[in-house]
């Protein structure tokens, strides 16, 4: 009984710390586990009937004037801590940062008090046109400065650290003068932001660009890692594609074992965006995360 209480307390501490310095509680503790909240699971989430510690939402889906999405989120928030995960902040873009976007985000933050705010190391808009994809950047010194300064501007506006997620990518450019992980770490250090390390994205990019995922993992300082994403992918020809339409793959679980050992029980979210399975199936993957923790502890 005492052990269970302690475990719960540690989990709550980690959750609260997700938006500050990286949570670091090593030992036999299951990480706080989430799934990405998708419409198929709204009914269960509104009743609080999903066996997770928190839920992750796509921020832009709730940047609406009113109606059902916000009513759903009010109900969900009464049962679960939530995290906002964005796809359109355009941190690597050269258009000015979108003030109306940041204002809408601030409104959501004030209303729903999320654990964390995250977006991607990419560009998504150019010349006023939103491209609705997470587009790759060249890994060059001048791009580090550009991206990090924009992240710092966002953090100043929001008054909190944000989490930056690594991408799945299919192209690298001659302009790059360093590896993706060197770039990611340099941006995080300069901006003083946290990292959402997507292990599926590392596996996908490692396959597509021919590097060892463990090299990537070992280069990321533990104090910056505040969340993990786990997901599945597809293979098309010689490339792996980040489709989020399959269960978490074996090579991603394998990498998660290493990440769990290196970073401790940082919060984990299982992402699924297409070919949505039953809730029970998805929660089976959450249980798998918890079993991994138990396996490492034993």
């Amino acid at each position, binding site marked *: 009984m005492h052990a269970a209480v302690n475990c719960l307390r540690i989990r709550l501490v980690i959750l609260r710390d997700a938006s500050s310095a990286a949570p670091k509680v090593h030992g036999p503790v299951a990480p706080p586990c989430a799934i990405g909240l998708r419409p198929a699971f709204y009914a269960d989430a509104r009743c609080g009937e999903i066996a997770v510690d928190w839920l992750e939402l796509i921020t832009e889906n709730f940047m609406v004037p009113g109606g059902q999405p916000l009513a759903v989120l009010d109900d969900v928030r009464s049962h679960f801590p939530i995290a906002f995960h964005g796809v359109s902040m355009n941190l690597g873009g050269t258009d000015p940062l979108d003030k109306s976007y940041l204002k809408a985000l601030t409104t959501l933050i004030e209303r729903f008090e999320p654990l964390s705010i995250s977006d991607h190391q990419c560009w998504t808009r150019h010349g006023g046109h*939103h491209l*609705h994809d997470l587009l790759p950047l060249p890994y060059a010194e001048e791009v580090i400065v550009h991206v990090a300064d924009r992240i710092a501007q966002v953090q100043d506006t929001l008054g909190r650290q944000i989490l930056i997620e690594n991408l799945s990518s299919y192209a690298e450019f001659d302009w*790059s003068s360093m590896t993706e992980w060197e770039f990611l770490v340099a941006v995080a250090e300069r901006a003083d932001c946290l990292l959402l390390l997507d292990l599926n994205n590392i596996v996908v990019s490692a396959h597509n660009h021919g590097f060892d995922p463990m090299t990537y993992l070992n280069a990321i300082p533990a104090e910056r890692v505040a969340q993990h994403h786990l997901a599945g992918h597809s293979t098309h020809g010689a490339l792996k594609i980040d489709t989020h339409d399959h269960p978490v793959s074996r090579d991603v679980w394998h990498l998660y074992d290493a990440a769990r050992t290196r970073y401790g029980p940082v919060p984990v979210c299982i992402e699924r965006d297409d070919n949505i399975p039953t809730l029970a199936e998805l929660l089976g993957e959450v249980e798998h995360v918890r079993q991994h923790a138990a396996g490492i502890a034993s």
Partner: protein
Amino acid sequence: MSSARLSHFQTQFRGFLYRGHHEEDLAAQVRSVGRTGSNGRLGVYRNAYFIRLEAALAHDFPVTEKILGKKKFARCAGDYALANPSGSPSLRRFGHQFADWLRAEKSPTLGDLAAIEWAALNVFDGPDANAADMPQLQAFTPEEWPSLHIRLMPTLALLALGSNAERVWLANGEGVELEAAPIRYVALWRGEQYRPMLAALESDNYAVLAAITRASELAVASECLAEELDSDTVPQRIAATLHLALAFGWIASIELTDSVTDEQQ
């Protein structure tokens, strides 16, 4: 810090996504590793761009897709995407010009159908407001009516259709052929549980509600209506329409113009 080089790179990349422009310039900058060359790698992004936008439109206009068929709809979506690049961080707004584009470029009847679907989406996630009721209107004297400021529910849509699109939409695109028809008027509004409700409107009711949308002060709306309706009957038609609108919950507020703030106007 200059981002000119990065901006140029992104201009090239965007041009490639849209129309395949700069393909050679961009491909020359891509590192080839293993069996997949630069064109194959860039192709992943270009395919994903159009697939994602097409999927967003198919999600938001399912009946229009059903009527057109998947292949024709996909071609329409691609043409629309090229003509109307997204201006919003949310894909939810990408289709906001789709009905007008279909009317102009493909067919007015398809435009009608898409307009109904778009209005139904706005019912789902448009602004919230409480409905005014009859006692609120009855609290004002007849002398005060010209100075009344009427605000309709923000999710109420008033549509003038030149087709039977509303019947096709109600039938979910099955068993009713979409065809041109004499002009007709419909209202679409938020019902219980955010469900879209649809009703046919008489032309008088449509004219009154459209005039109130344009000029919320009743005196001004009356002047507009006098130009298109028999001026002697305008007061009665306004009164009848307001009763109808209150009964259906289409009015958000009724206030004297003096008490309306600039923001509300």
